[in-house]
Each structure stands twice: as structure tokens, then as C-alpha cells.
């Protein structure tokens, strides 16, 4: 019985020896092009717009090459591994473009194109002379690093690319570093990402010890004890969890996404978080079998993360923070799918593996697309109306009708409603969870289907949250000056958004288009010995597509009939009747915080909303103010008190930090001396010295 490692290595060896395909080279070329995209701008001065056009061109060129290579490999091209020399003989760099990597590359390049098109007008060089070039430089580096993380086939290359990616994202988040909240957000992000990277270093070190090399090849089935595998899993969970934003390691996410420029937020939410998911998926391909209970644990973590994210999103009234919390929710859903796949591996049910993994992977794509779209739309709102506060917007659907329509597409998609793409990936996960309750008589997995109602609750809360967001931002009256003066965004920004809306609609209405790619990745992930069923056999896509078509056709038909009716008898336009109120004002309309109040109160035990108001008790009414906010739990209730007690505990050691250079140098000398004494047999040396001195000293030999 061949082990998975042997089979895999044999197949890779065969494939590598058959042909030297161009796909890996194309990917590397794409990488180089995107990395270099921001460099010409450095030479072209800060007042010219030429550099941004050139940068966009380079990114688009790189993206085309990269997508071509990725689609080719997803379509069945051979897998190729390339080895590059590294600094030491044991540390060479390996690159490989296999189906899992290609799958993650597809959204990387699509989002980068959309982002760069968007950025030409959103962050126009002439409007942002002081940081525009830096933004484009780091944008290109980030895209290249994302691709490099995915192409890396050994721990060393992976970590290098990971660090570059994290740092590029840091520089992008803090691009507007004149604002204090941006600096704060960048700082928290940096700490979180490095905590994760530390765990990853430990992970790869342990992996080297167990596996014998840093290369990403599956471990032999006997290698490593149970304890070692569990330790590896925990390190991977922490390390990749920080990056993916799994609760409770998510605390850096809201501030970082809210304070970065919108197309950067789109990239971070759509791609950076997914690299954590990619890392976990890659990690599980290295283990011979997942440790017991891991699958159910991941489902539980995913469910909790999803519920946490969506409940907190309800309490936000900053548009981008709201979207950031929804990212946490969707990552939770992705982790649920991954957990289901792991349960399937443990239970030896290939159908569950296929459904769970396909749901996880498709949701990765879907989330990149619709979250990217939503962030770009949010950026358009900020561009058009000037503020991020939902309660100060309103009525933008009239002046910004195209942005409103695109945001609506994103909102329906993220709620998982048919006929758009969110529904397809959630359906895969639902069917998988239900099957875990129906197939197989084992009681061990029977708790898994209970995640389905919780997922349904998450979906319904997402509907609530996005009705709130869409309704308060685009519908209703104008709630402030900025909203009243809003204007539609330029065409390049609209094109970027449409570019992301297209896959949302396409995958939603024609889910079969994505199935071959998903099947290929599922087969690659599972390994050669298990044959998971094709997704087309597990879920009948034809009737679903039929229903989607019927939905679209039905809506169109009814709309046409009504339209004809309204042309014959034109409706009367008047003010809102509203049960007879004569003078409604914008302040009377339901704002976002009012809309969410019922749910925020219901979940108040988790959200702990804080209200602040000044009560004035003078005779005549004067200006009052009231604000509410939902604090980020982990930062404010866990990390901040920990930090304060840490500082207090370590305060005695502050005496060592007196600022005097001379004494710092003395510390170095002292440490050196102690090390010398510990590592060197001083007494022997002294004996020999005394003997040598007695023999005549230096000139004794001569």
C-alpha cells in the first residue's frame, strides 16, 4: 500500500520530467512585472500622472500572464517544480505551481487589476503627491509577494515571501501616516502579523525536525508522534489564524481595513486574509492524516468566528469597519468548510471532503470578488460623499446610481442569496453539513449538522446588516451636506467595480463554470489514493441554474409588465406618506444605529455597546450630542488590560532603561564576558598561561 508521500512524489517526479512547461516561468514573469510596477514612478517625480498609468499597465500585463498560467494549471496542465539556489546549500528555494496554488492565484491577479484601475482615480498622483508613489510601489510589491507566497514550495521561500507580504501590507496601511488612528492601526497590525510569523517560524522549525527538510512534501505516515502533529497543528492554527483573522486573533483586522485606502482594503480583505487560509490548506496536505477532533474543532471555530463577525458588524456605523467585520464572518464560513473537509478525511467520507473543501475554496473566490467589490464601492462612496460614517450618508442612490447598483450586487452576494455567487458556496457547505448528519451512522459526526442552523442565523444577520448598510447609505433622505452634494465616481473606478461584479454574477447564475476547477483542486488536495466524487454528481447544478434563470426571468417579466403599466398610467410623485406626517426631516428617518438597535440590544451581552452623551440641564434647549460605539472586544477587554498588567509587572526592569549609552555598552561587555566564562575553560587557560609565562613568555620559542 503506497503511502501518500510516495505516490505524490512519484507523480510529481513524473510530471516534472515529462515536459518543461512555460506556466511556472509565466508566473515568475508575472511576479517580476507586478513587483516592478511601482518602481518607474519613483523616478518620474511626484507631480506627474504618467507614472500611475505605467504602473497600472505593468500590473495588468503581469496579471494577464499570471491568470493565463493559473487557468492553464487549473485546466489540467502539468505541475512543475523549479529549484533556485539559496544562501546555504541546505536552504534552496523551491517554486511550484500546482492546482491549489493556481486556484489562489486567480483572485490575486483579478483583484490587483481592479485595484490598480481604481487607484488611478481614487488615489490620483496629483491629489496625493506625498504618498502616491509609495502607495503604488508597495501595491506592486504586495501583489508580487502574494503570488510568491502561493508559488513557494518550501518553508524558507514561504517565510521570505510571507514577511515581504506582511511588511508591504503594513506600509500600505500606514500610507496616510499623518493621522493618529492610521498609525495606531498600523502598529496593531504589525504586532499581530509578527506574532503570527513567530508561530510560523516555530511551525517550520518543528516541521524540519519531523520531516527532515523544509520542502513541502507530505510527511511519511509514521513520521512524528501524535504530540508532534498536534503541536504542529496548533502552531499552524495560531500562525495562519493571525493572518486570516480567525477569532480571537482578528483584533487587528477592523482598524487596519478601515484606515487603509479603499483599494488597499479590498486587496487586504480579498487576498491577504486568504493567504492564511491557503497556509492552513497547504499545511494539511503535509500531514498524513489530520489529528483526531481537528475537523470538528475547525467547524466550531469557524462557526464561532462567523457569528462573532456578523454580530459585531451589526454594531458598526463606519462603513469600512462594518465590511471588515463581515470579512471575519466570511473567513469563519471558509474555516467551517475546511473543518467539514477535515471531518470527511477523518471519517473517510470522500463526499464530505469534496463538498466541504469545494465550499471552502469557492467561498475564498467568492469572498474575494464580492468583498473587493464592496470595498471599492465603499471607497466610491467616500470619494463621492466625503465621509465613512453611515449615519451621515443617505440618499446616495440617486446621484450615485451606478455605484448603488454595484453595491447592491455585492450586498446580495455577500448575504449568500440566490442568484449570486455567495449562495453557491454556502450551498456546498450546507449540503456537506447536512450529509454529515444523514450519511454514515456514526454518532461521532452527528453534531456537525448543528452548524447549519447557526450558518443560517449568520446569513440572516448578514441580511439584516446589509439591508442596514445599503438602506442607510444609498436610500432614504440625505442626512448631511456631504451626502447632499454627492457625485458619481469616474469611469475607471466604475470599470474596476464592474470587473469584480462580473464574476459574482457569472458564478452565481452559472455555477457549473467553476466546478471543473474545484474538482481539480479537490483531487489534488486529497492526494492520489482517494477518489472524491465529482461535484456535479453531488449537487445537481442544472435545476439550480434553472431556478436562477427562472428567478431572473420572473423578475424581469414582472418588471416589464409593471413598466408597461406605469407608462400607460404614470405614477404620481409626491412626498413619503408615512402615515400622514407632513414635515418629515432627515433626522426623523431611521438611521443605521436605530436599525441595528434591536439586534445590538439582543446581543448586548457580547457587544457591550458604549454610549456617551452630555446631558445639559439648562433652561433653553442647546446643542446636545450623543454617540454610541461598539468596542473591539479582544483589544479593549483582553489585550489592553494584559498590556497594562504586563507593564506594571515589568516596571522594576525599567530601571535598566536609563538612556545612558555607556551603560548599555557595559551590558554588552558583561554579557560577552559571561558567555566567555561559560563556554571557555578559563581555569585551564590560566594554568597554561602561567606555565607559558614561566617558560619565557612571547619570545621564548624564538
Amino acid at each position, binding site marked *: 500500500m503506497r503511502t501518500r508521500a510516495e505516490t505524490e512524489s512519484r507523480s510529481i517526479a513524473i510530471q516534472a520530467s515529462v515536459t518543461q512547461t512555460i506556466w511556472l516561468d509565466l508566473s515568475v514573469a508575472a511576479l517580476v512585472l507586478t513587483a516592478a510596477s511601482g518602481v518607474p514612478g519613483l523616478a518620474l517625480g511626484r507631480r506627474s500622472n504618467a507614472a500611475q498609468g505605467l504602473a497600472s499597465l505593468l500590473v495588468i500585463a503581469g496579471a494577464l500572464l499570471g491568470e493565463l498560467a493559473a487557468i492553464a494549471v487549473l485546466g489540467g496542465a502539468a505541475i512543475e517544480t523549479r529549484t533556485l539556489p539559496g544562501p546555504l546549500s541546505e536552504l534552496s528555494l523551491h517554486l511550484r505551481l500546482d492546482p491549489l496554488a493556481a486556484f489562489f492565484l486567480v483572485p490575486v491577479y483579478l483583484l490587483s487589476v481592479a485595484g490598480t484601475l481604481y487607484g488611478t482615480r481614487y488615489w490620483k498622483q496629483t491629489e496625493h503627491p506625498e504618498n502616491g508613489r509609495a502607495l503604488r510601489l508597495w501595491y506592486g510589491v504586495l501583489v508580487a509577494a502574494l503570488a510568491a507566497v502561493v508559488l513557494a514550495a518550501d518553508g524558507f521561500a514561504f517565510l521570505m515571501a510571507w514577511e515581504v507580504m506582511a511588511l508591504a501590507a503594513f506600509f500600505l496601511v500606514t500610507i496616510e501616516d499623518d493621522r493618529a488612528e492610521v498609525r495606531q492601526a498600523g502598529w496593531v497590525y504589525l504586532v499581530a502579523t509578527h506574532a503570527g510569523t513567530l508561530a510560523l517560524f516555530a511551525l517550520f522549525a518543528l516541521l524540519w525536525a519531523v520531516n527532515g527538510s523544509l520542502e513541502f512534501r507530505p510527511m511519511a505516515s509514521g513520521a512524528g508522534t501524535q504530540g508532534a502533529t498536534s503541536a504542529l497543528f496548533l502552531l499552524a492554527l495560531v500562525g495562519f489564524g493571525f493572518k486570516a483573522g480567525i477569532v480571537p486573533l482578528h483584533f487587528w483586522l477592523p482598524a487596519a481595513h478601515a484606515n487603509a485606502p479603499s483599494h488597499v482594503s479590498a486587496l487586504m480583505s480579498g487576498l491577504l486574509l486568504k493567504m492564511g487560509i491557503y497556509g492552513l490548506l497547504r499545511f494539511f496536505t503535509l500531514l498524513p492524516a489530520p489529528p483526531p477532533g481537528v475537523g470538528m474543532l475547525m467547524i466550531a471555530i469557524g462557526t464561532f468566528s462567523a457569528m462573532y463577525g456578523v454580530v459585531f458588524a451589526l454594531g458598526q456605523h463606519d462603513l469600512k469597519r462594518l465590511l471588515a467585520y463581515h470579512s471575519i464572518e466570511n473567513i469563519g464560513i471558509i474555516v467551517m468548510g475546511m473543518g467539514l473537509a477535515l471531518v470527511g478525511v477523518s471519517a473517510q467520507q470522500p463526499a464530505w471532503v469534496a463538498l466541504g473543501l469545494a465550499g471552502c475554496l469557492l467561498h475564498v473566490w467568492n469572498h474575494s470578488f464580492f468583498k473587493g467589490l464592496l470595498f471599492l464601492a465603499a471607497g466610491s462612496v467616500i470619494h463621492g460623499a466625503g465621509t465613512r460614517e453611515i449615519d451621515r450618508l443617505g440618499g446616495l442612490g440617486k446621484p450615485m446610481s451606478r455605484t448603488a447598483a454595484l453595491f447592491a450586487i455585492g450586498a446580495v452576494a455577500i448575504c449568500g442569496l440566490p442568484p449570486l455567487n455567495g449562495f453557491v458556496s*454556502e450551498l456546498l457547505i450546507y449540503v456537506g453539513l447536512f450529509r454529515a448528519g444523514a450519511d454514515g451512522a456514526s454518532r461521532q459526526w452527528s453534531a456537525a449538522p448543528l452548524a447549519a442552523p447557526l450558518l443560517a442565523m449568520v446569513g440572516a444577520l448578514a441580511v439584516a446588516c446589509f439591508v442596514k448598510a445599503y438602506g442607510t447609505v444609498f436610500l432614504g433622505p440625505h442626512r448631511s451636506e456631504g451626502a447632499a452634494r454627492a457625485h458619481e465616481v469616474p469611469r475607471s473606478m466604475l470599470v474596476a467595480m464592474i470587473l469584480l461584479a462580473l464574476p459574482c454574477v457569472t458564478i452565481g447564475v452559472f455555477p457549473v463554470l467553476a466546478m471543473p476547477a474545484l474538482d481539480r483542486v479537490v483531487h489534488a488536495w486529497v492526494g492520489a489514493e482517494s477518489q472524491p466524487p465529482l461535484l456535479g454528481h453531488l449537487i445537481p447544478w442544472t*435545476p439550480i441554474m434553472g431556478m436562477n434563470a427562472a428567478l431572473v426571468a420572473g423578475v424581469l417579466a414582472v418588471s416589464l409588465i409593471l413598466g408597461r403599466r406605469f407608462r400607460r398610467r404614470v405614477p404620481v410623485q409626491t412626498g413619503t406618506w408615512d402615515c400622514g406626517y407632513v414635515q418629515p426631516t432627515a433626522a426623523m428617518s431611521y438611521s443605521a444605529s436605530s436599525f441595528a438597535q434591536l439586534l445590538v440590544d439582543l446581543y448586548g451581552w457580547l457587544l457591550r455597546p458604549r454610549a456617551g452623551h452630555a446631558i445639559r440641564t439648562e433652561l433653553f434647549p442647546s446643542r446636545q450630542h450623543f454617540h454610541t460605539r461598539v468596542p473591539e472586544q479582544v483589544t479593549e477587554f483582553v489585550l489592553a488590560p494584559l498590556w497594562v498588567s504586563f507593564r506594571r509587572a515589568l516596571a522594576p526592569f525599567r530601571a535598566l532603561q536609563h538612556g545612558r549609552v555607556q551603560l548599555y555598552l557595559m551590558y554588552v561587555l558583561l554579557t560577552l564576558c559571561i558567555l566567555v566564562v561559560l563556554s571557555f575553560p578559563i581555569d585551564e587557560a590560566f594554568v597554561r598561561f602561567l606555565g607559558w609565562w614561566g617558560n619565557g613568555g612571547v619570545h621564548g620559542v624564538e
Partner: protein
Amino acid sequence: MAWNETLPDMVTPILHISVLLLAPPLLMGVINKTKAWAAGRRGPPLLQLYYDLFRLFRKDTVLSRTTTWVFRAGPVVGVTAVLLAGLLAPFGAFDAPLSFDGDLVLFAYLMGLARFFTAAAALDTGSAFEGMGAAREVSFASLAEVALFVAFVVLVRLSGSLSLTPMLHAPMTGAFHGLPAAALLLVGVALFVVLLAENARIPVDDPNTHLELTMIHEVMVLDHSGPLFGLVLYGASVKLLLFSSLLLHFALPFSFGAPLLDWALFGVGLLAVAIAVGVVESVMARLRLRHVPSLLIAASVLCAFGFFFTLA
């Protein structure tokens, strides 16, 4: 179960679609008549909603200047989505016209789509009343969805199938005794509560008052007029029909075997459900809004108990 095996003849689907399209307003009429009789009145005619719909479709429309296309999309998507969901739900002992693995999710999410657009249309008017109704509607729906899905989980476990038709026909097979039967009973009760919640009936909402403190669904559609309002009322009645038909599989889980008798049984069952709803509405008062979540959570817990019974 492959989807193309569920169309044995053309009669059942045609009857199904006819009932789906034509019967719903009658149910509303029955409920109103029951409530009127319980209050000692004669009440409106049974076919009142049909007259109302005809009248509304002939009227002009008044649109608010604040609204956009979303306001008109609300009723349109609401009706279309709910009617399409009706193609998935089996009526009585008969198969639904469309049945495939995973259609239970599509059923629930089509309702969700309808809810999204209805609530968005409510916010479109910029009025405080509609916003309030929309907020309440989406908040309570999140809890009702949980109960519905736990019920689905129980049914999936008992029937071993992932499609609504075989799932809901499972109680009719008579194969369940003891604990699974108790599970089905609990699920049935919970589904009744979900029906009341999703269709804005007392004790969750009062469809008759127009006081802001007591409205959820009524208030969301305050500004709709003419054909749009007609679509709203019609969509609401179709939704009631669908939930009633789901419930009937638990309340009357047997079949005569003959098509005519089974359709008659289904008709009688629908009327019974409508009368039951009317009775509940007449006997109880509306719950305070703060207690509605507790009611829905209780329904979910009942279903969860049912689930644990099936594990045994």
C-alpha cells in the same frame, strides 16, 4: 434523488401550480372570517382578498420622491422569489414540481431574498415607520431561520434525504415510533411558531392594528400603493400557504393513496391550519416585542430537543 424522476405526469405539477397561484388569498379570507366569528361579527366575505387584489391592480400608483428602483423592486422580487420557492415545497402527499438535493437551502434563501428586498424597499422611503418595521422584520427573521434550519436538520436525519419532498414525506411513511415520533411532534409545534413569526401573525405581530408600537410587516409596506401593494399582499398570502403546507406534513402525516382524496385532504388541512391561526390570533394578545426573541429561541430549542431525540 435525481431531479428528473419527480415529474411522472403532468397533472400533479399543473395542479400544484394552480393551487399555488390561486389558493393563497382564500386562506387569508378564512383566517379573517375565523377571527370575525370569534369576535361575534360576520366579517368580510371569504373571497375578500381576491376583490382587494382586483381593485388594487386597477388603481393608480403613488410613488414617493425619495424612493429609487429598490422601492419598486421590493414587491416584485418578493412575489417572484416566494412563488419560485413554492415550486420546491410539496403539497400534501404529492411531490413538488421540482425536487433535488439541496433544495431546502434554496427554499429558505429565496425567502431570504424576498426579505432583503422588502426591507430595503421599506428603508427606501426614508420614513421612520418603515425603517422600524424593517428593523424588526430582519431581526426576528434571524431567529426564525435558526428554528427552521434545526427543523430541517431533524428531517434530514430522519429521512436520510436532502430534498424537501422526501424529507417532508418521511413522517407519512409511518415508520417512526417512540423518540423519533416525539421529535417530529416537537418540530411540528416549532414550525407552527415559525409560521406565526414569518407571516406576521399574533403573537409576533398584529396585522390589523396601525399603531407603530405593534407593527412589523404592516408598517413595512405603508407607502406602497396600487399594483405594488397588490403584489405585496399576494406575496404575503403565498408565503402563508407555503408555511402551512410545510406544517401540514406534521399535522396530518397520512395519505389515502388516491390522488383525489389526497388533494381533498390537503385542502381540508389548509383550511384547518388557517382556522387554527385565526383561533390563535383571537385568543392571544400580541407579545411585547422584547419577548418575541424568547419565543423564537424557544422554538429553536424545541427543534434542538427533537434533534437530540433522533440521535438516541
